């Protein structure tokens, strides 16, 4: 009797977990269904799940037809909602991590997404030609630099997750990526980043001290960094950046702004 009760309890407890997680096949069947029906409201509700699963697929090792199809469908969902940057990101990831006949056949969607982001033909062709690398680490780098080249606000949280995952998996990230993360943290606009990011060196020197970066942007970055640190109560760091900021050469308005910031640093408010 005790055994029967034990088995029943086990079965009952097991059945609680039945719907705890849906299989990738189920998720794929669902997203394919709603995409083909074009139910925008349902696509919108499903996108957080789709993004989460797609990111998990990119960050996990191994290949598979379900993964390549799922990323493709996620891209279609984003495309249907007008989120072209994310559509392009998932198509790029699909091409880099799970190359297959599906990824080769999605040229139309890839080009349409890229053109919708106002990219020129040469840049789109360059993105399309990005090929998978031999190691997973290189693939992460390729995906980051290709997606970052789009300079879209939509992709900032996605790329942040990617950089942090890369850091947790491989221990370190290239300096250029660290600079990007810092610039994203201080909320530098992507359209401003577009104008100088290719001039940023892959060294430990902070961006506001790199000579090749235009002075206008060095000042802007230093100002934003000071504001960022002061907002978080890191007055010492803000003070040390303000010393570098002063050396760049300031006009009277900027000098007055710096003086005010120094007073705030001094009295910590």
């Amino acid at each position, binding site marked *: 009797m005790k055994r029967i009760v034990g088995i029943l309890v*086990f*079965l009952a407890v*097991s*059945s*609680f*977990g*039945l*719907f*705890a*997680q*849906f*299989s990738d*096949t*189920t*998720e794929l*069947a*669902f997203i394919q*269904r709603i995409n083909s029906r074009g139910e925008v*409201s*349902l696509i919108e*509700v*499903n996108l*957080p*799940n789709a993004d*989460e*699963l797609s990111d998990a697929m990119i960050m996990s090792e191994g290949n598979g037809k379900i993964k390549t199809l799922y990323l493709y469908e996620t891209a279609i969902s984003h495309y249907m909602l007008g989120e072209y940057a994310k559509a392009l990101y998932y198509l790029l990831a699909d091409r880099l991590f799970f190359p297959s006949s599906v990824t080769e056949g999605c040229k139309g969607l890839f080009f349409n997404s890229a053109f919708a982001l106002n990219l020129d033909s040469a840049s789109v062709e360059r993105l399309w030609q990005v090929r998978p690398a031999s190691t997973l680490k290189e693939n992460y780098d390729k995906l980051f630099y290709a997606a970052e080249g789009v300079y879209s606000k939509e992709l900032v949280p996605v790329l942040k997750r990617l950089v942090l995952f890369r850091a947790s998996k491989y221990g370190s990230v290239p300096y250029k990526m660290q600079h990007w993360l810092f610039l994203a943290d201080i909320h530098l606009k992507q359209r401003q980043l577009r104008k100088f990011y290719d001039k940023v060196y892959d060294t430990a020197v902070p961006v506001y001290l790199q000579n090749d970066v235009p002075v206008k942007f060095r000042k802007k970055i230093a100002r934003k960094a000071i504001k960022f640190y002061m907002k978080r109560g890191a007055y010492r760091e803000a003070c040390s950046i303000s010393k570098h900021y002063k050396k760049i050469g300031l006009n009277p308005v900027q000098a007055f702004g710096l003086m005010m910031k120094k007073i705030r640093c001094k009295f910590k408010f």
Partner: protein
Amino acid sequence: MKRVFVLIFGFFILLTAKAQDFDVYPRTKDDMMNFDHMPSSMQLNEYRMLQRNIRIQDGLNAILVPGYVHFKAGEKKAGYWLLGLRLAGYAGLSAVYVSSKAKGEPLFQINPLDKPDESDVINVTGQWKVDKSDIISTLSITVIIATYFYDWIHGKAKLESKQELIRYKYNMKMGLEKEIKNGRIVPAVGVSVKF
């Protein structure tokens, strides 16, 4: 003496009434400690939407906080619009009140008589003369009432449609999961070895 008894009686009734939360449909069970078995892919926002329900009390709250129901339904943009419109309505009403007090005129004066200040009056079909301030106050009251009912009715409908979509999504996934497993939902027992 009678009055004293009535007052004491009324006081005790109020005491008991105070202990009750005003709700037409009270909750019959304590679901504060009712933990659900939810799919692990469920987002916090979705869980919140499913837990929420628009009740009489929310309707009352919406009187004090414009856009309350929309905020509760996760429609922040619409909520702020309603908040702005209601505030504009209150501002219009206050302006008319202050101006009529200053002039010493009553509100809602629709009359066929001559008015001393013709610049404040609009002629309607040559017979009726309506004060501009009356139009503003009528518009303001309409905006206040309309935003309140829109908030309550539309907000409730929005929340329900969101809940339907979330339920549809997970129900559909459960159906597909069942289909994929050949229509059999049985607890599976497996052995895994980890090195």
